[in-house]
C-alpha cells in the first residue's frame, strides 16, 4: 500500500540564506497516523510542515520529491489540495477570515464551489461534532482564544480532509483550552480516522496520543519513532529535556523496559523501580504535609504590599478582585498561579498602578502607590504585558531601545540630557543582558516569540524599575527559551530586582519561583515557599510531584525525584533492576 505522504531526500534553502533550512528529509506518513514533530525554535519543523501543501510552501531552492498517494504533490490540483489537505496555523486570530462563526465554517466550501445544500449539511455536521451549536450565530470577536482555535479546526474539517497539518496550534492558549484542543484532535484521529501531523513544543500531553514522534535539529530528522523508543534514541541529546517528565526521570535513572510516557505509567514504573531497589514502606518519606511555609509568604523585607484591595470595572459589575492581601519580598521571584478569568491580569494591573482599587491600599516601600505620581512607571514599577509585541513601536530593535531613552521624563529624572553615545551604550548593555544583541537590526516583529519577550524586557529594564511585573512571560515559548528566561530572571533577582509574575505555567514556577501564590475567585487563597506550595497540592502541581508524591511528597521537580530515588537506593543497598 502506498503511504499517504512520502518525502524523499528533501533539501530546502530560503532565498538569501547560506545554510539549508531542511536537509536530507526522507520519511513517510501512513494513513490514519498521529505524527508529532518537535524540536527547538528554528529547527525547521514549521518549514517542513509547510511543504505538505503547495499553496503555503515557502519560496526558495528545493531538491528531492514529495509524493501524495504516490503522485507528485506539485501535480495535484489546487482544488484537490485545498479540500484533502487541511492546515491550521498558530495564531487563533489571524486565520479567521470572516466576521461570523457560521460564515467562517462555510468559507472553504464556498471557495470550492459547493452547493448551498451540501454546505448546510456539512456545516451542521461539523458544528455538532465540535460542540459549536451554542455559539454558531456569534461574531468571531466574541469568542475566547480556545473557541477561535476550535473554529479554525472545524472550518478546515468541513472540507473533509484526509490529512490535517497543525503548526503549534496551542501555543497561544491557556493549559485548559490547549488540553481541550488536543483532546479534540485525538477525537478526530480516533473517530474519523483523519491523519494528523502536529508541530508542537508542549509535549507532556500530546506524546501519549502520538503514534510516532519526530525530533528535528538543524533542519535534519534526529529521531523518528514511537515515543516509547525515544529514550534510547535521544540519549545524551539536549532535546531530551523537552520530553515529558516521566520519560526524563526514566532516562536519568537508567530505566529498563518500555519508557513510561504518561504520569500513570511513570508512577507504575517508579513503584516497580523502588520496590526492586529494595525500598519498602518503612523507608518511604511518608511525612504528610500539614503546615505551609508561611514565612515565605510573609517576607521580612517587603517591597510591595496589597492591603485589603477591592476592585471592579464598573460600579454595577461584580468585583473582580476582592479582599486581596499580598506581600512580595525584595529580590525574590514571586509567582501568582491561577486559572483563566480569575482576575490575575487585573491584579497585576492594580499592583502596577494602571488600575485603581475602590477600597484598600497598595504600598511600595511602605508608601502608597499614588504618592509616586508620574515617576511610578520609570524606575519604580515596570510591567511586561502579556503580548510583548504591543510594546514595540519602531522598525528595528535598536531604535526601539533608544526610543525608551529619549523620553522626556527620563531626562528630568537623570537631571540632564544623555549624549547619543551614552544612550547607545546603555541600550547595547541591556540588549547584551537579555541576550538579543545579535538581533539589534531586525524588525521587532521578525523575532521569535522568546526573542520578542526578551527584547520587550530589555526595553523595560532601560527604565531601571525596582519591581518588574510580568504577565504570562512563558506563554508560547518553548522549553529552551524558558530555561534562558529563567537564567535572566535569576540574574535580575541577584541584582536586587523584585519580580512578580502571573502564570499558568506550573512547571516553570515550581522550578524557578521563590514564592508561589494561588489565585482563586478574586483573591489569593494561599501563598507559600514554592516547594511547600506544590508539595501540598494534589492537582495544581507538577507532573514530577504527581508521579512521585506517594513515596516522596516533597519532590517537585524531575531533579528532586531523581535525587530522591538515588537516596532511597543508597539507603536500601545496591539496586537490582526487575
Amino acid at each position: 500500500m502506498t503511504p499517504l505522504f512520502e518525502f524523499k531526500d528533501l533539501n530546502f534553502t530560503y532565498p538569501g540564506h547560506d545554510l539549508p533550512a531542511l536537509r536530507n528529509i526522507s520519511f513517510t506518513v501512513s494513513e490514519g497516523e498521529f505524527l508529532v514533530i518537535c524540536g527547538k525554535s528554528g529547527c525547521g519543523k514549521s518549514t517542513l510542515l509547510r511543504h505538505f501543501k503547495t499553496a503555503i510552501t515557502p519560496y526558495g531552492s528545493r531538491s528531492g520529491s514529495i509524493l501524495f498517494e504516490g503522485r507528485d504533490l506539485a501535480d495535484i490540483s489546487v482544488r484537490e489540495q485545498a479540500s484533502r489537505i487541511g492546515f491550521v496555523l498558530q495564531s487563533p486570530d489571524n486565520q479567521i477570515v470572516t466576521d461570523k462563526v457560521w460564515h467562517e465554517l462555510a468559507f472553504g466550501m464556498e471557495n470550492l464551489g459547493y452547493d448551498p445544500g451540501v454546505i448546510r449539511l456539512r456545516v451542521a455536521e461539523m458544528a455538532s461534532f465540535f460542540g459549536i451549536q451554542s455559539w454558531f450565530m456569534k461574531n468571531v470577536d466574541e469568542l475566547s482564544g480556545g473557541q477561535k482555535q476550535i473554529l479554525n479546526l472545524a472550518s478546515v474539517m468541513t472540507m473533509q480532509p484526509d490529512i490535517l497539518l497543525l503548526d503549534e496550534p496551542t501555543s497561544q492558549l491557556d493549559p485548559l483550552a490547549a488540553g481541550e484542543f488536543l483532546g479534540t484532535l485525538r477525537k478526530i484521529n480516533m473517530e474519523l480516522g483523519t491523519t494528523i501531523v502536529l508541530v508542537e513544543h508542549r509535549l507532556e500531553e500530546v506524546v501519549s496520543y502520538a503514534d510516532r514522534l519526530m525530533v528535528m535539529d538543524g533542519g535534519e530528522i534526529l529521531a523518528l519513532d514511537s515515543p516509547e523508543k525515544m529514550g534510547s534514541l535521544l540519549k545524551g541529546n539536549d532535546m531530551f529535556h523537552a520530553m515529558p517528565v516521566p520519560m526524563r526521570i526514566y532516562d536519568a535513572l537508567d530505566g529498563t523496559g518500555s519508557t513510561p510516557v504518561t504520569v500513570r505509567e511513570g508512577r507504575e514504573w517508579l513503584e516497580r523501580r523502588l520496590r526492586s531497589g529494595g525500598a519498602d514502606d518503612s523507608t518511604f518519606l511518608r511525612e504528610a504535609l500539614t503546615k505551609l511555609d508561611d514565612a515565605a509568604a510573609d517576607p521580612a523585607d517587603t517591597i510591595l504590599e496589597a492591603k485589603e484591595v477591592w476592585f471592579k470595572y464598573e460600579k454595577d459589575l461584580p468585583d473582580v478582585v476582592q479582599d486581596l492581601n499580598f506581600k512580595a519580598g525584595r529580590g525574590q521571584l514571586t509567582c501568582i498561579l491561577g486559572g483563566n478569568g480569575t482576575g490575575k491580569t487585573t491584579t497585576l494591573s492594580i499592583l502596577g498602578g494602571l488600575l485603581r482599587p475602590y477600597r484598600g491600599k497598595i504600598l511600595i516601600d511602605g508608601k502608597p502607590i499614588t504618592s509616586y505620581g508620574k515617576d511610578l512607571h520609570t524606575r519604580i514599577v515596570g510591567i511586561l504585558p502579556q503580548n510583548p509585541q504591543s510594546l514595540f513601536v519602531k522598525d528595528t530593535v535598536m531604535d526601539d531601545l533608544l526610543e525608551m531613552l529619549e523620553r522626556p521624563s527620563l531626562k528630568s529624572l537623570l537631571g540632564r540630557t544623555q549624549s547619543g553615545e551614552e544612550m547607545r551604550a546603555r541600550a547595547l548593555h541591556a540588549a547584551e543582558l537579555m541576550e538579543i544583541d545579535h538581533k539589534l537590526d531586525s524588525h521587532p516583529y521578525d523575532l521569535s516569540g522568546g526573542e520578542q519577550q526578551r527584547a520587550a524586557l530589555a526595553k523595560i529594564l532601560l527604565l531601571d524599575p525596582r519591581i518588574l511585573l510580568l504577565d504570562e512571560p512563558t506563554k508560547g515559548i518553548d522549553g529552551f527559551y524558558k530555561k534562558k528566561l529563567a537564567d535572566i530572571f535569576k540574574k535580575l533577582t541577584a541584582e536586587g530586582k523584585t519580580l512578580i509574575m502571573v502564570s499558568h505555567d506550573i512547571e516553570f514556577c515550581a522550578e524557578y519561583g521563590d514564592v508561589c501564590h494561588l489565585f482563586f475567585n478574586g483573591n489569593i487563597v494561599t501563598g507559600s515557599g514554592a516547594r511547600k506550595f506544590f508539595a501540598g497540592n494534589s492537582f495544581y502541581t507538577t507532573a514530577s510531584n504527581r508521579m512521585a508524591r506517594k513515596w516522596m511528597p516533597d519532590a517537585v521537580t524531575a531533579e528532586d525525584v531523581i535525587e530522591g530515588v538515588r537516596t532511597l537506593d543508597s539507603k536500601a543497598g545496591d539496586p537490582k533492576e526487575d
Partner: protein
Amino acid sequence: MDTFSSCHPLISFVFYLFAIGIPVFYLHPVFLAIGLAAAIVYYVYLKGGASFGKVALFILPAVILASVLNPLIVHQGETMLWYLPNGNPVTLEAVIYGIGAGFMLASVISWFASFQEVMTSDKFMYLFSKSFPAAALLLSMTMRFVPRFGSQIKRIRQAQLCVGRDVTNGTIRQKLAHGMTIFSIAVTWALENSVETADSMKSRGYGLRGRTNYSIYRLDSRDRLILAVMAAEIVAIILMIRSRWVYILYYPLFTINALDWRAVTCFAVYALFCLTPVIMGVNEDLHWKRIKNDTVI
C-alpha cells in the same frame, strides 16, 4: 428576537424600503402620522417604552428644526401670515410643509431605530452577496478587521502606559507624534498578520473558479406568504395614489383630498402594511398562549 426579525432578510428589506419610502416621496400628513405611529409602536414592542426615550431625544429637535427653518427659508405659497424683518413673507403653506417635513424626519428616525435591531449586518450582507459576491466577502472581512484593529491600538496604548508613555502626556506636538507612532506600528501589525490570513485563505482554496455563496436564510412558505401580502398592499397603495384617491399639494395653495371612503381605504391599507411587524409579533404571542392553554400537562 421577535417574529418579524426571524423572517427572511428580503422581507425586512422590502418592508423598510416602502414603509420609509412612501411617506418620504409622498409627503401626505396622514401617511406621515400613520408611519410615525407604527414606527414608534413597533420600536416600543421590540425594546420597551424606556428605550424609546433616547429615540425621542432625536425626534423632537428634528420636528422643531424643520418646522421653524422651512418658513424662514422658503417663501412660496399664497397665504401670507406676516413679513420677516428682511422683508420676506412667511406663508401658511411653508409652515405646513415645514411641519410635514419635520414629521417625515421623525418617522424616518423612528423606523431606523428598529431597522438597526432587525437588519443586522449579516442580513444586509446576504442581500448584497447575491449580486456583489466579492464586495460582500470584502465587507465581511472588513467587519472582522475593524474591531480587531481598534483593540490592537488599545493594546498598544495600554502597553505604552505601562512604560509611562501615553497620548495624554506632554505637549500637543508630543501627543500627536506619539499618536502617529502608535498608529503606524498598528498598521505594521495589521500587515504582518494579514500574511497569515492570506495563507489561511489560500490554504482553504480561495481564488478557485466557481465560488458559491452560503447563507443561513431560507425563504420558507410563511415568508413567501408575507411577501405576497406585502407586495399586494404596496401595489394597491401605489395604484390608489396614481388614481388620485388621495392627493396633496403644498404650493402655491395647500390642497388635500377629502376624507371620503376612498381615502380611508388607502390609509387603512398603508396602516396595515406599516403594522405588519407588530401584527405578526402579537399574533405569535397569542398563538403561544393558546398552545400553552391547550397543553394540559
